């Protein structure tokens, strides 16, 4: 079965049972493949509504329709965009969806209104992904990146779609397939219980498509290929330990758990066949770091919403937005009086003094980028103490609700231990597991931190760079062990950081403060703190005060 056929099957199944299947994630950059897919979606006999990221809560939740209310002089509410006949919502650039927005969509999908969602995932960079809450609710996921133009054939829906729709609820799902669905999910590391449910619905839809009233193994296998692969977090290398619930689950005396039989190899093969090559390596790295979800903190913006302040009187500057509702409210209590003075006037009477302006309080979130030297020289000296200091700083970051990112550099390059997040527990885990040893590629660490700082500043965060190192750079950017070149590269980057005006802080972890590092900090226009030969607490105090100044 080719990719395109699978995509078409997903759409056909969605057409059969949109409500229970929830929807489809289309992962493709804008292009002919995405266009063909959207054209195929047109075949679904449902009204289509496009969602936009800047939709305000008023649009999503419904609000007073002011113009109509004023014209008709009675209260007219504008319906929520979700308050309509069963529709197909299309969400472009779903990877940029804010958690609040995705949560609202999820609630609409679950509200039993018969809606379905097509999420277009155009993620390009690593770390960009759909909110997990959405992917969990949408049954299907198709990746169209590898499609050739000639593959794209127009699709047609089966003719008697209405009959199939009517039949799908009656399709029987045999008990052993339910068990199969659950075991398979467990062995693929899929913890959400929605997955086996959606699998069942997909299998039922497929059976109905072929006029069967009971799900067969074939239906089941196809459904597995459509629903499970993108949810898998591991591959069952050795199914035995997974099949057995672990010790956390005390054996109940009354109810002997049936010996979960290892999942059908055929099904796992089916999943493997569908997995794109890249996913396998992702799986393997995911297995090393069993963190669930991407942590939506990655894409959170600091500036795109603010705490609305009470609207303010007066048109002081022309750029301010008039808060219609607030202005109306200010005017309304006076209407009866003003009407008495001017009985002929139609509609409410406004005066300049009624105008209210919108105000928002915007506070940019701070992002602390910890760049930790984990090289052998630093490790011997003070890595443990540096970790302690970072942990204390993390505690404070938590209190201030800062975002935190963690980079470590050692050996030949730097490693992103944690993309920007607010989950400090994760940060701490990664930090504790950080091994030490190897050379000091200071420049590589600075490159990584610098890139992240620039990128996140675009996203509206205020980055601050915190560098913990002994400053003994001995690996240059090109990977050679040239001390002089390494130092020059570090200086060059420090210069760049200063030019980009990224606030920075350099913590010297050597026992005797290093002259070169002080120079580096000077170039970077960073605060320089020598890790005193004392406990981590005093370092944290020093850093806090330095941060407060910056």
């Amino acid at each position, binding site marked *: 079965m080719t990719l395109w056929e699978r995509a078409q099957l997903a759409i056909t199944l969605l057409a059969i049972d949109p409500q229970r299947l929830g929807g489809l994630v289309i992962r493709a950059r804008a292009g002919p493949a995405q266009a063909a897919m959207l054209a195929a979606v047109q075949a679904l006999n449902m009204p289509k509504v496009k969602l936009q990221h800047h939709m305000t809560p*008023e649009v999503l939740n419904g*609000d007073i329709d002011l113009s109509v209310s004023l014209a008709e002089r009675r*209260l007219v509410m504008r319906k929520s965009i979700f308050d309509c006949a069963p529709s197909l919502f299309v969400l472009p650039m779903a990877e940029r969806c804010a958690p609040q927005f995705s949560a609202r969509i999820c*609630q609409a999908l679950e509200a039993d209104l018969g809606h379905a969602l097509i999420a277009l995932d155009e993620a390009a960079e690593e770390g960009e992904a759909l909110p997990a809450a959405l992917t969990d609710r949408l049954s299907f996921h198709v990746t169209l990146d590898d499609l050739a133009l000639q593959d794209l054939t127009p699709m047609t829906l089966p003719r008697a779609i209405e009959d199939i729709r009517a039949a799908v609820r009656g399709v029987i799902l045999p008990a052993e397939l339910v068990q199969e669905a659950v075991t398979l999910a*467990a062995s693929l590391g899929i*913890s959400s219980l929605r997955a086996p449910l959606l699998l069942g619905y997909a299998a039922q839809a497929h059976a109905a498509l072929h006029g069967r009233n009971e799900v067969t193994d074939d239906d089941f296998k196809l459904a597995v290929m459509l629903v499970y692969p993108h949810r898998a977090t591991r591959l069952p290398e050795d199914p035995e330990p997974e099949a057995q619930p672990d010790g956390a689950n005390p054996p109940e005396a009354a109810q002997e758990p049936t010996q979960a039989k290892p999942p059908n190899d055929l099904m796992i093969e089916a999943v493997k066949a569908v997995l794109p090559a890249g996913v396998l390596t992702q799986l393997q790295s995911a297995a090393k770091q069993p963190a*669930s979800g991407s942590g939506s903190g990655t894409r959170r913006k600091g500036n795109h919403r603010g705490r609305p302040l009470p609207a303010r009187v007066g048109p002081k500057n022309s750029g301010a937005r008039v808060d219609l509702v607030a202005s109306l409210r200010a005017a309304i209590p006076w*209407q*009866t009086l003003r009407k008495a003075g001017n009985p002929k006037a139609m509609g409410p009477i406004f005066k300049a003094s009624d105008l209210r302006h919108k105000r928002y309080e915007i506070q940019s979130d701070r992002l602390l980028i910890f760049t930790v030297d984990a090289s052998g020289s630093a490790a011997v000296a003070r890595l443990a103490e540096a970790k302690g200091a970072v942990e204390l700083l993390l505690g404070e970051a938590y209190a201030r609700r800062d975002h935190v990112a963690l980079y470590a550099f050692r050996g030949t390059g730097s490693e992103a231990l944690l993309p920007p997040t607010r989950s400090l*527990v994760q940060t701490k885990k990664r930090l504790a597991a950080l091994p030490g040893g190897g050379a000091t590629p200071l420049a590589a660490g600075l490159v990584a931190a610098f890139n992240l700082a620039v990128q996140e500043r675009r996203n509206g965060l205020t980055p601050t760079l915190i560098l913990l190192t002994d400053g003994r750079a001995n690996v240059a950017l090109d990977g050679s062990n040239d001390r002089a070149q390494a130092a020059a590269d570090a200086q060059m980057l420090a210069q760049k950081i200063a030019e980009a005006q990224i606030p920075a802080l350099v913590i010297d972890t050597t026992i005797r403060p290093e002259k070169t590092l002080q120079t580096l900090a000077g170039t970077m226009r960073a605060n320089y703190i020598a890790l005193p030969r004392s406990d981590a607490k005093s370092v944290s105090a020093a850093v806090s005060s330095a941060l407060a100044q910056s």
Partner: protein
Amino acid sequence: MKQPFPFSAIVGQDDMKLAMVLTAIDPSIAGVLVFGERGTGKSTAVRALAGLLPPITAVTACPVNSADVKDCPAWCDISDASVQSIATPVVDLPLGASEDRVTGALDIEKALTKGEKAFQPGLFAQANRGYLYIDEVNLLEDHIVDLLLDVAQSGENVVEREGLSIRHAARFVLVGSGNPEEGELRPQLMDRFGLSVDVLSSANIDERIEVIKRRDAYENDHEAFIAHWQSEDATLRARIVAARAALADLQTPDSALRRVAELCIALGSDGLRGELTLLKAARAFAAFAGDATVTDDHIRKTAVLALRHRLRRDPLDDSGSSSRVARTISEILGH
């Protein structure tokens, strides 16, 4: 409208179900926070709760569901003292709800059509004497959280804006659910929840299969399924009503008070709120179990629920507060 999934039909998740039942027995426990992974039945349980709760009697025309006409706020001008039995309100506070919608605001319709200044009650009014449910509570906008903190604490909603000066009772059980990966909760808000539950999806294959089967039955064999489980729900409801009645006569010996205090001191939980909630929860649990006196056993069963989110938070201690509480319980209460 389809009947919600019945409460009794939820497989496993005993802690979550117990916590909700306890708040139904004693609403002054003031809330349940359900944090956990996706697809573990968090929202299903809350929606089911609405079907489980015993009805309340309320003044027919009262916007805040007052039990008696003399409790009705003066501004709603109610003369008709007739009461009716209504389902316990379970009100959804949607993300992105505006401040006006939550607290209530000037009634624009009346202002427009009649030129009079009237108050339009908001969600706080609707939720009075019932439940206020916030899905994805950790994503709630800060300014709504501030409103919530104040009202949940004082039990009274005060609106001072647009020339309105309105106050009304707003006592409700706060139920919040969320996924901790999407953001953490402000400690102040966390504190307002009486009980807290950490839900994990079951690792037991049999249980998971049962979940899917029941869901399937709910979808495909709706009437029979609902009929079967509604009787279970009715039994549970009767137990809740009986426990409410038993609560008044329940003996709380000084030894139990001492135990609770010892536990809270050993855990270093902030303030007295933990002690009070634990005591209430233990009493509700004793009443639910049909016992006449609060014993160590009741405290043991409810301590994790009542205390795990109240430990002095060290955000970096990942050993899990549940296990810390459990450890202290076994130290103090013995096994």
